[in-house]
């Protein structure tokens, strides 16, 4: 089975993980962890293009600002509950946590 993972799920992972109300994530960080995920498991296919990054923004238009090289999410506490439906599966979250800590 193919596991597809896109940038909106990776952003949701970082948003869910933070305890703060605002987070800045560089596109490079999203792409780097996506590459690591692919390396860790050949059945994972990632897509971290601008389309999938702006997909996340279109769901939280008042909270997300996209600049040239990063995505900024504000007012996280107000959207924390809604984020859960954009998170990847538990096994992917576990792997993302491992790689992020590394």
């Amino acid at each position: 089975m193919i596991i597809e993972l896109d940038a909106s799920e990776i952003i949701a992972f970082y948003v869910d993980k933070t305890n703060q109300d605002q987070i800045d994530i560089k596109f490079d960080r999203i792409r780097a962890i996506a590459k690591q995920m692919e390396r860790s498991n050949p059945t994972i296919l990632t897509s971290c293009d601008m389309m999938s990054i702006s997909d996340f923004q279109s769901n939280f238009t008042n909270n997300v600002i996209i600049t040239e090289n990063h995505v900024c999410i504000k007012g996280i506490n107000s959207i924390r509950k809604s984020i859960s439906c954009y998170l990847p599966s538990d096994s992917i979250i576990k792997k993302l946590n491992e790689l992020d800590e590394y």
Partner: protein
Amino acid sequence: MKRILDTVHGYIMVDEKFMDHIIDTPLFQRLRRIEQTSIRCVFPSARHDRFIHSLGVFHIGGLIVNQLRIDALSNNNWNKTEAVLETIYGSYLSACLLHDIAHAPFSHTFEKYYGQKNNLAVELKKLVANDVFSNDLESTIENNEPNFHEYASAIVVYKKYRDDLRILGYDVELVIRMITGIYYRDDVNNQIHNCFISLLHGEIFDADRLDYACRDVWASGYSTSTIDLRRLISSLHIKKNKENIFVVCFESNSLNEIESILNVKDFQTKYALNHHVVVYDNYLLQQAAEFAALYYLDDNNIQENSGYLALNKIVNINNLIDEVPLNNNLKISLLSDDDLIFLMKQSSGNTFYKQWCSRKYVHFALWKSIDEFYYYFPNTPKGVSLKNSNFEKVVKNKICENGDYEYDDIQVNEVTFKCRIKLDSLYLVVANEVSKYTDIKPIENSKSKDIVFYYVYVKKKDKDRKTIRSERKRIVESLKGTVADLYSK
């Protein structure tokens, strides 16, 4: 000069050099056995293939080159020498022929089995071995390009056609850029090269899209708008825009033809490629092929018995060129639709194949289109992506909660309605000035982005259509609250 009769374009005239170096080669002839679309289960007459499509793209490419030759003459050759332009034209026509050379079997159904794009990118970079190309590829990846089969085609072109293209005097790297849509960035000297890249791999219209828009309509038999190809191409120019950059543009009197192509694209996305039967049929085909791959590749090294990884060993760029040894002294080379059918037929116990080849589907769809979904669940947001990672789990739990169904009785498939076309990249000539289409005609937001949506298929407990209808109604009613909760903010 060879004449090839085509039902869509009439006679396609092909220079002998293209016959010798590209068309009459095993890899190109393989395309006769690669389905053009994946919609045959719904549109049975759509039996056309990537071979005639590639020739059609070459034909349209020829019409475009002829039109632009005239344009170049009246524009001081866009400040290029004739020799440079001839290399661009020849490279463009070669790329038109070769753009699908490594297409996976059954249209796009199996292209993800070529493996991770990061690995394909690394291989392509290694082959081209040019820093500028590598940097330009990185920029292209940000837009989720190139696609799997484009990477594969570029790699195969480099490995198998590089010498032929050099003999013909064409630019191999430019051919690869045209196939993969890798534009030259920040280089004023390559604006005309970029225009021709966009004429095969554009965000607007290109020879590839024009051919499949005409050919798929003809072959499938569905009625949408008619496209006057010659009128559209005769309105094509390369001119400088307001930022003083050469761009491909169309005269404004071709707007009717442009709208026709958009209508075909919309129809194909909504009613053909994402038809609920097509989506289910493609799912069955993938499962059947994965089963066959596991059956024929008795390999203990395949991680977790993964059908994806097993099939990846068969649907693989290297295997287009070399032979793949399987069990029972079988070997596969020049992989095509026929090979996968053979493997699926021979793998005993392949229930997915039995369903696929008999069309006796064991599941029924709860809704048959996105419009029907909106009808059943009127409070879901419209015109936005419905992607929700909890959808499958929540819907399955709800359907199974009273014990009528098991988890495995339900199949959830995610589909994507790709955005129309990046219309802000389309330029029109109005009152002798080059303007963006979107400056003249603003577009609806929903038509500029991809929309994700789900089909849910439930196992039939009864063959009777009336019983299935009432079961569908019952399940959909039971899901109303669950789906509303999923999409309430």
